[in-house]
């Protein structure tokens, strides 16, 4: 029998295990449709804020000589109210809405905007490494994480995912806090705070100076984090960070992820990357006697 690549992240059921990561391409419903048609199991929106944000001036992204990217787009987004209206007609695409804010009330306000939309899940951005007062600065504050997750869980019945990153509070503690407050799943890992300096002009390249490192250079780190989370906690995990091939995706399943997200790989390989990874996973499963994704999850921990 042909293996099935459908998967479940807690109560979130997906026909395909490869999703679009937040921050990538996610500003229009038309583009979501195209990504879904091309193999994305779900799409995660850009992180939405209460109001529209313009983000930082360019340069906002920079390609490293040997692969990988550093970006500080600055969470540019059209704002939750506009976005909710835009996706209201959607009935077919599994959309995970990423939210960014500073206080519990921000998240509560934004979730209310989506009352008339069909949402697969919300992903809380507790980990963007290059914008003040939100993202990682929130994720690094355990009391704030506690308050936000609690309020969000009380605001909606839709599953809530927390996306974590490497900040000053140990990410395993942040995951533990989120689990205590009833989080449904964890996405690990966000980009890692980094920078690049141009030697000819002797200045940082990004207008924000600091950005987040993504792509192949961070994959081993993200993989380690997924392995550590799944070893310590019983929580569904979405693997994210430098995944660009089916082999990378399988590594994350074996480490304990139930699904994966890809971002930078789209910049390197364009939209066909979803179908490429999906079919590679399927082939691997056939060759290795797996009939479901579930059978693969965390297998590496048993060795």
């Amino acid at each position: 029998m042909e293996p099935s690549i459908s998967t479940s992240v807690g109560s979130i059921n997906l026909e395909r295990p490869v999703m679009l990561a937040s921050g990538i391409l996610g500003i229009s419903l038309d583009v979501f449709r195209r990504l879904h048609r091309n193999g994305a199991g779900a799409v995660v929106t850009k992180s939405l804020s209460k109001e529209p944000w313009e983000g930082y001036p360019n340069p906002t992204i920079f390609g490293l000589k040997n692969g990988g990217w550093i970006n500080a787009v600055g969470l540019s987004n059209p704002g939750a109210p506009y976005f909710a209206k835009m996706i209201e007609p959607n009935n077919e695409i599994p959309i995970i809405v990423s939210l960014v804010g500073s206080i519990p009330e921000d998240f509560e306000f934004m979730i209310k905007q989506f009352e008339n939309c069909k949402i697969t899940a919300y992903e809380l951005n507790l980990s963007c490494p290059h914008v003040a007062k939100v993202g990682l600065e929130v994720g690094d504050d355990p009391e704030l994480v506690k308050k936000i997750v609690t309020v969000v869980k009380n605001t909606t019945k839709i599953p809530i995912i927390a996306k974590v990153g490497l900040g000053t509070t140990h990410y395993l503690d942040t995951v533990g806090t989120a689990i205590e407050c009833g989080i449904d799943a964890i996405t690990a890992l966000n980009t890692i705070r980094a920078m690049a300096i141009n030697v000819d002009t002797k200045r940082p390249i990004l207008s924000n100076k600091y950005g987040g490192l993504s792509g192949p250079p961070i994959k081993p780190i993200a993989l380690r984090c997924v392995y550590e989370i799944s070893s310590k906690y019983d929580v569904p995990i979405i693997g994210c960070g430098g995944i660009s091939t089916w082999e990378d995706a399988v590594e994350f399943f074996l480490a304990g992820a139930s699904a994966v997200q890809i971002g930078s790989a789209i910049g390197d390989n364009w939209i066909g990357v979803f179908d490429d990874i999906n079919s590679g996973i399927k082939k691997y499963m056939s060759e290795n006697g797996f009939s479901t994704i579930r059978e693969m999850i965390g297998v590496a921990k048993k060795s």
Partner: protein
Amino acid sequence: MQRNPNHTTICIVEKVIDETPTVRTLVFSDDVMSKVLPGQFAMVWIPGVNELPMSVMISNELGKAAFTVRKHGPASTALFNLKAGQQIGVRGPYGNSFDLKQGKILLVGGGTGLVPMMRLLTFMNPQDDVTVLIGAKTKDEVFFEDLANKLLTKNIHQVIVTTDDGSYGEKGYVTDMVKKLVDVNHYDGVYTCGPEIMMFKTVQYAHSKGLFVQASLERMMKCGVGICGSCCVGEDLVCRDGTVFDGDHLLSNPEFGHFHRNKAGIPEIY
């Protein structure tokens, strides 16, 4: 080793040419950029200021390329004000290019949209019969007319300039001239770059006559590589799927000719 197109390369501005009071061409040496295809663009870093998507202008010197910029906002004004000897960063080239047809060819350009049109002219075959339409608001803003004639010396050709106020060339919008020409002539290929409404009308007129037509689109861009999504037009990404699109594809796109997105990603009407 081949250079990573996503990694910024620093180039020195060697020469600055005044095209009009508000348009300048900055020439620099770079082998990669000198060989780009018409329609392709570079992300151009003005250190300490900003980074802009720019169509790559031709140079008459081997191994050199240029950017032709109109001063508009703070970033383009900073680029406009650069002097010989100053540094710029380039990454790319990005994007696709025009599909070249042979025979009777019509090019329609406005403003700095003429840049990919000039590069396209360098790809014409000697037997092509080429008409170039240059649209401008007024006489002071006309540029590249002489260059177009020079690039086409081996061809049967005509270069027609229109100005909105009639201060030079034919009076009226360039798209009125497009309509006039496609009404009485068959063209094997129509190519356009410039203000979106100009392209929209050009594509409409050409398409209504069953002509092969392509347009090179411009949008606000951040990454240039298909990651940030800023330049989406409907489901298309200008940086990655374009900048060149077929006319029939564009006419089926609900945003072409109507909306562009601001920095936050909210559509704004043209």
